[in-house]
């Protein structure tokens, strides 16, 4: 809101460890977490209470969330704990 553009980029790599991600989600206040392994290293994490589906794949995570911005921030923070960064 100060009119400046932040071009600093954080690089992330590695794969999301699902048990660690579920634990991080729980710590961030999510209570209803359903995990489904869809094969080939892909997992769907469903948060039905928060209208959210998270597709975790090797090198890609897609968060489909129609909920509030605060929900997305909590999910993002949980994911960032599970990835390596520079």
């Amino acid at each position: 809101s100060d009119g400046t553009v932040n071009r600093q980029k954080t690089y992330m790599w590695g794969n999301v460890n699902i048990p660690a991600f579920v634990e991080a989600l729980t710590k961030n206040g999510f209570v209803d977490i359903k995990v489904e392994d869809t094969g080939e290293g892909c997992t769907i994490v469903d948060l039905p209470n928060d209208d959210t589906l998270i597709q975790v794949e090797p090198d890609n995570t897609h968060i489909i969330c129609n909920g509030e911005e605060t929900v997305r921030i909590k999910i993002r923070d949980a994911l960032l704990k599970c990835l390596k960064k520079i």
Partner: protein
Amino acid sequence: LVMKGTKLQLVDPGLALKDLGLEEHNLRFTSTVMLEEEGQTTQTADRIYQLVKTNLKEFPVSYSSDGSISISDSVLVQVSGDEESKSVLVSWSHQVIKSICKISSDGSISISDSVL
């Protein structure tokens, strides 16, 4: 800062990852916003395009013939629906939201909220 043999080199982080054989992990968010707006979907898409273009002058914005709007090659906006209401799909990568949230006039941290 990367050490190659006995030399220290300053390299782009993206290149450093590639050199190390590491693949970047992409985070993408998708959210669909419902709009109670009468008229054709192209009219809604046009309105959003004009808003985005006016508010995000720092970023390249393109409007393709199928009615989808792309911002910086990372944000995608697609409008669908009928005469009565529209659903607006907004998809963005983690890094882009960080950049765009800084320039939204109302301090909102999501492009969907700031644009619509």
